[in-house]
């Protein structure tokens, strides 16, 4: 088997020396707490900016991105309720021995 080129051997040597150290650093509690703090700071900064811009837009009676996000969340929750209800009805229909073909593409099924 041919030996890898010199540049590759140099890279591998460096990588083997550095990688374990970096991997042990990212598993430390300090790294976890630091990353969490950075994530929290980023989220807080975004929330502050959103709150400031929301105040400005609300002054002229316009909806903000946050308002839209809140609406999307509510629609998402409603969608979930409807989906769960539909699944439960489907299961109930199956339990009662009925068939519900609306969501099933029967032509695509190839039972053995």
């Amino acid at each position, binding site marked *: 088997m041919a030996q890898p080129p010199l540049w590759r051997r140099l890279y591998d040597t460096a990588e083997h020396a550095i990688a374990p150290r970096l991997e042990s650093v990212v598993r430390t509690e300090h790294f976890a707490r630091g990353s969490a703090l950075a*994530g929290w700071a980023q989220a807080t900064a975004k929330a502050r900016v959103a709150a400031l811009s929301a105040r400005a837009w609300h002054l002229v009676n316009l909806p903000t991105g946050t308002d839209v996000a809140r609406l999307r969340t509510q629609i998402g929750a409603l969608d979930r309720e409807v989906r769960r209800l539909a699944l439960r009805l489907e299961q109930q229909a199956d339990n009662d021995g009925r068939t519900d073909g609306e969501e099933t593409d029967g032509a695509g099924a*190839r039972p053995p």
Partner: protein
Amino acid sequence: MRLAAGARRPVGCTPKDVVWRRGRTELWHYRNDGVQVSPPLLIVFSLISRSFILDLSPGNSFIERLLGAGFDVWLLDWGVPDERDAQNRLEDYVDDYLPAGITRVLELTGQDEISLLGYCFGGNLALLYAAHHRSSPLRSLTVMATAADFRHMGPLADVFGTGGLDVADVLDADGNVPPRVVLQGFRTLKPTAQLTRYVDLWERLWDDEYVAAYQAMTAWSDHHVPFPGAAADEVVRMLVRDNGFVTDRLTVGGDRVHLADVRCPFLTVLATRDHIVPEPAAAPLIDLVGARDKHELRLDAGHIGLVVGKTAARTTIPTIIDFLRQRSTVSRSGLSGTSPGSPARRTSGFPG
């Protein structure tokens, strides 16, 4: 040349039909005219990545091998969650989608049992399902690269666990955990891997086969899907902070569930070089499930190596096939067009 031309080998090519759909979730049935094994095999995929890793390319496809071994293969694909899925909790998958998918498979095959195979976090969902639905029609349960002890899941779990970061702090406008957060978490596991990947590519840039495989793999590893926000919050609280699988503090839909209630034949496959679900994270599982007929397979492979590449082809897939066939009914003449009660035999001899 492939890179310059932007040519990509297609992925997920094995012919299949979508037989049921609800929300973003789809139930796929892979076509197989040579079905010899019953009950059908339903694969439950992870919530954070795309399922085509199980059907990467012709000749390098987990699905293709299962079909070749005579299995009737079905897959529950969760799709790409959006704002409508942000409120999804684990119970949505464990108590609604999974039972509905199983019912559909049983209905379409005329069988009364099913074998379940969970990959990565799909294994956790399958375990929760089996534990919460004790009278479920499971002939067997197989999980691959599935974590039990989430304290060993690496920096991403540490940030939410010991670091104390809340899921709410990383949600996007849709209310889901964006894929970049998960991707960043995975990249942090091996900080030099990203650079090494490009070095490997540079070294083998003129090898078309390598470049094609590289493109297929990166198409999977760089393109995760959003994790539904409420489910992610539940995972952090119950599985990471409480370490629920190990401490037996699992709740689904308000009910306490116990892995000790998983009684069907069980196989856990774990990879000793897995950096995403490390060996110490997956290893406790075998002792936690209550099945008497339970087996563990440890392989010298990485997370992806369990389903893709030489180790998968030589060891993982044949062992899983062997396990499943021995807990299935195998017909030499094939089951196509026959009734579920056709002449058949049970195989035996799985080690352990």
